[in-house]
């Protein structure tokens, strides 16, 4: 049984069919990159995976169980914009992810617990290269730094699935390359399953272990919304990377704690 099972999923908005007959099996730890023309349902697919929307037909199973119908801590997300909280500084933007699940009434921790949460957040921020920006608000950070912050925010939850909606679309090519390296490092260390929507085909090929191309197989020029998109190409990539990652996991397993 695969980690994520997508079984004959359709997504329709009234008469507008966005996705049709989508069936996929995704193994745990896969890095899927989603490419395709604009309006081909890549982001819709991501919203389905996030639980922001429910499929009109079909079902999605996560580890054998129906996917929860609303966002939860098991699935992290990074959007292209508005991923971080403008009213919190970098440190609290990450620490809040440790506070919220543990404080269902007040939403914040106090005393030693708060210090521990902030320390954990600080370590992660240092890892993503924001060790010197802990006190700054998102508005004071550059676009690349904001996305680093958003990634740190997602990783502090240790989700099993990470969903990325064109996370680097607004960044300069040089900065984008740094972000790719950061993302691959974190992915290799944590073993989580990634879905990443991108407009950049090269990015899709370079990062993923599996490239999913979304496209319409049928098209009615009189009714452009009558048919939805499917996955037309499903290309395994960078097999060496998965092997390397499996080895890292083995070595980690051998090491005594």
């Amino acid at each position, binding site marked *: 049984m695969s980690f994520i099972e997508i079984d004959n999923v359709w997504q329709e908005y009234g008469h507008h069919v966005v996705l049709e007959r989508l069936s996929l099996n995704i193994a745990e730890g896969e890095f899927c990159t989603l490419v395709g023309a604009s309006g081909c349902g890549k982001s819709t697919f991501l919203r389905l995976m*996030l639980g*922001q929307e429910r499929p009109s037909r079909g079902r999605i199973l996560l580890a054998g169980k129906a996917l929860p119908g*609303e*966002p*939860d*801590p098991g*699935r*992290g*997300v990074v*959007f292209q*914009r*508005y*991923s*971080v*909280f*403008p*009213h*919190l*500084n970098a440190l609290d933007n990450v620490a*809040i*992810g440790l*506070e*919220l*699940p543990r*404080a*269902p*009434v*007040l*939403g*914040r921790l106090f005393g030693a617990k708060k210090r521990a949460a902030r320390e954990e957040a600080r370590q992660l921020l240092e890892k993503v290269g924001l060790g010197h920006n802990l006190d700054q*608000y*998102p*508005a*004071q950070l550059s676009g690349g730094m904001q996305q680093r912050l*958003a990634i740190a*925010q*997602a990783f502090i*939850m240790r*989700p099993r699935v990470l969903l990325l909606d064109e996370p680097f679309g607004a960044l300069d090519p040089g900065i984008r390359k740094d972000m790719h390296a950061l993302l691959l490092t974190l992915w290799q260390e944590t073993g989580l399953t990634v879905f990443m929507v991108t407009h950049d085909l090269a990015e899709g090929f370079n990062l993923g272990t599996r490239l999913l191309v979304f496209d319409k197989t049928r098209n009615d020029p009189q009714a452009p919304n009558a048919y939805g998109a499917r996955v037309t190409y499903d290309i395994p990539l960078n097999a060496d990377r998965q092997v390397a990652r499996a080895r890292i996991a083995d070595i980690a397993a051998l090491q005594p704690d």
Partner: protein
Amino acid sequence: MRLVNRQPERGARFLLMLLPFIVLVGVYFFGSTARLAGNPDDKLLPSASQMVAAIHHAALEEDGRSGEYILWADSAASLKRLGLGLAVAALLGLAMGTVTGVFPLARATFSPFMTALAMIPPLAVLPILFIVFGLDELSKVMLIVIGITPVLARDIEQRAREIPPEILIKAQTLGANSWTLVLRVVLPQLLSRLLLSLRLMLGSAWLFLISAEAISATAGLGYRIFLVRRYLAMDTILPYVIWITLLAWLMDFALKGANRLLFPWSEGART
């Protein structure tokens, strides 16, 4: 150079800022001198010395009847009503606006209702307030609350809905429940907007205060100017109006400062 491209220099900017004030004061005293020259008993445009005497009487001399310093007693009474009304309206407006802005079920229930309520002209219900709450302090505070709250609530609701859905989803992926989502993500952002909305509503709040005081009160800035109107006491009314304007401006300034101090992220975040 085209007019749209001409910027005033620093010193010139300051002078230009003062110019309308100077012109206003100049025109006033020119008219005042002319009228007083024609009729020394004219009351319409009192001279500076007459106004200073009136202020001196109101602010620095005990009133013969009540033994109070009238200006300060009036200011205290008015500011108490205004502050109380604004505080209650802010709390109610924030609570209602947040709930309707964040929860779709609450929005479906109360949002159209609030829109309808906001259409009621508050002064039209003033008689009802006097009947229900009596002629005392409560009815004046209530007029401010009723006048301000629906507008504040609608503004806050609008601001809450402007928070990008990505932010709310992100909070849920970080383990927030509905309550902590409001508490830690939505409310802090709305508090900053609340201060801004309050600044914009200050004018209306003063309007309702003075209206209520004009109709029924025994002290207050609005009460005083409507009382002395009977004697055409422009020498008291004009300084009172300037004093009210100054108080309103100070409140606006304080709210602006509070926003900068309490929510340092909000100024930069708007870029």
